[in-house]
């Protein structure tokens, strides 16, 4: 069994594809330097990431694949799942080995695997559009709408355009409190931000009350009450609710807090 090692970058995966075609070797695994080598490994090969290899493969890839498939690949990459490298690798090898476009042959397990993981990531992206809740905060006299989220995948970059378009006339921050970074929109541009470690702005992943605008708690309360009032008691079905709105998001959703905020 052959194993490739790579540097855990997207450029690295594409370089691995280049090397494989060059050497005519098809690895069973593509691992980072810290991954443990599986049993029965007979050969280890270290992929050198270079711009040249990357450019060649990425150009070929953009030429060969429709944009839907390219999007799927980038979603798979941003999933940060350990298997992402080998999935993309297998997919690209298959694509380059044949002449015609196979990107929608979902009866093929490799192609289906890409599609399915991409779908999960896309789903998470959709969840972010649904379950982001902005809080009006006071930042040195400035009103900013701040939202803290904990997405399963690293997908903040995929929703920026959506929020930028939608909330064009308010300053906002989207903060990923798992990965500890976020984006700030200042009415013109979006830029990456980090929070100062010693700051008391967030406590246990929640915004410190002192920073909230004076009316903020009342809006949360209104939203909470609104959601209670629209519930039809005769039809209560918590299972269905949890299926549509996974509990892992509830922490940031005022409408699900038991006590009125």
């Amino acid at each position, binding site marked *: 069994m052959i194993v490739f090692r790579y540097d855990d970058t997207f450029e690295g995966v594409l370089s691995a594809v280049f090397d494989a075609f060059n050497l005519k070797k098809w690895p069973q695994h593509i691992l980072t330097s810290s991954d443990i080598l599986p049993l029965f490994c007979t050969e280890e090969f270290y992929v050198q990431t270079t711009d040249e290899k990357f450019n060649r493969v990425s150009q070929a890839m953009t030429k060969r694949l429709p944009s*839907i498939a390219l999007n*799927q690949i980038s*979603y798979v990459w941003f999933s940060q799942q350990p298997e992402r490298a080998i999935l993309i690798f297998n997919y690209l090898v298959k694509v380059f080995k044949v002449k015609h476009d*196979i990107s*929608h*042959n*979902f*009866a*093929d397990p490799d192609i*289906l695997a890409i*599609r399915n993981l*991409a*779908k999960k990531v*896309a*789903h998470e992206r*959709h969840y972010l*559009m*649904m*379950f*982001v*809740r*902005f*809080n*009006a905060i006071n930042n040195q006299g400035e009103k900013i*709408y701040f*939202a803290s989220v904990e997405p399963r995948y690293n997908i903040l970059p995929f929703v920026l355009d959506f929020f930028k*378009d*939608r*909330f*064009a*006339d*308010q300053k906002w921050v989207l903060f990923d409190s798992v990965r500890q970074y976020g984006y700030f929109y200042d009415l013109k541009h979006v830029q990456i931000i980090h929070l100062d470690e010693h700051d008391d702005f967030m406590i246990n992943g929640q915004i410190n009350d002192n920073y909230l605008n*004076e*009316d903020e708690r*009342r*809006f949360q*309360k*209104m*939203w909470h*009450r*609104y*959601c*209670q*009032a*629209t*519930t*039809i*008691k*005769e*039809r*209560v*079905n918590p*299972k*269905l*609710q949890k*299926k*549509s*709105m996974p509990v892992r998001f509830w922490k940031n*959703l005022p*409408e699900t807090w038991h006590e009125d905020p």
Partner: protein
Amino acid sequence: MIKDSTIKKLEILAESAKYDVSCASSGTTRKNQQGGIGSAHGWGICHTFTADGRCVSLLKIMLTNFCLYDCAYCINRRSNDIRRAAFSPKELAELTIEFYRRNYIEGLFLSSGIIKNADHTMERMLRVIKDLRTVHNFNGYIHMKAIPGASRELVYQAGLYADRLSVNLEIPTEDNLKRLAPEKDHQSIFLPMRHIQQHLLENKEERSKFRHAPKFSAAGQSTQLIVGATDETDQQILQLTAKLYKRPSMKRVYYSGFIPVNGYDKRLPVVKDVPRIRENRLYQADWLLRFYKFDVNEIVNDQHQTLDLDMDPKLSWAIRNPHYFPIDINRASYAQILRVPGIGVRSAKLIVSARQHGRLNLAALKRIGVVLKRAQFFIICHEMQSFKLQNSSPEYIRLSLKEPSLPIMAVPQQLSIGLE
């Protein structure tokens, strides 16, 4: 500072609006315009789910729940002793914006009890949505309920600011409507419906000539039918639905299982439970009409006036029509494949594109997402030994596929976006 009284009002008026089941915020796309707030997307977004599992995408609220009318099926009817409240148009517009800014909602769904008369009520509602669009520069979604009996001019005005206009039919037949809602008749409902339709068509033509003519109710209209409060059969209901869908402007018909909000009124039947399964079957049948190109008479007819509660209408149709099968998965047209139980729109599309690369067998179908448990009786494919339906009596299939129906679809879900 928000007043406690506003919170109270919000609660009362949300409570009063909750029985309207329409929830979609889809059908239009509007980009944010210079400096404004909000956008609308073709597929709409749910922002939360209530404990009953329904999607909340719009601030569904009444301007007021005072009402002159006395419709038996409605909690807001004149004779009901409930708390009443009213927003000022300005107050409601501001509240909508504040909710929107926090990403709680996609927009507003505005309805109202009838105060003074239809036009007076329409005018006040109009003020809310006009404020949103012109004062607040709001580009999010707006759905407004037109008041039965409202004048043509006001319907027109409302359509200029709303993405969707709707009038609820509520009761499928005229006689029953008159009995339960003495102040209403079909005329007062169908007329505004017709106005919406006419304006929409005129507007389309205008816009083809003058690109900047304002859009009129771009997402069309919808309506709601209450199921189980009166004695109409599924056949009557679905035939009405099919007729409504013939109008190019009618986008959705919603079904609302009757909830006894008024136990003592003699005009209403005594029921214990909401007829969820029936409601769910109606949605499934509606789905067949809109996306599967079924003719209404294939689903319900004089021999089959009610939908089968044990199985979905597509399966039930398939069992009644064995001569239509088997379908050869590797050869049949998309339209034919779509009629196989266990194969949805998505799988049918995947099948048609995947089979260009090679013949499909059962394993491939399974991977694609076909529910073989159901589909296997109706198809043949590569490597499949024989056509199963031949060896199985309809009764056997019925029994083996009969399942306690889960009313997951009790409320129409918003489509979630996929990658395709």
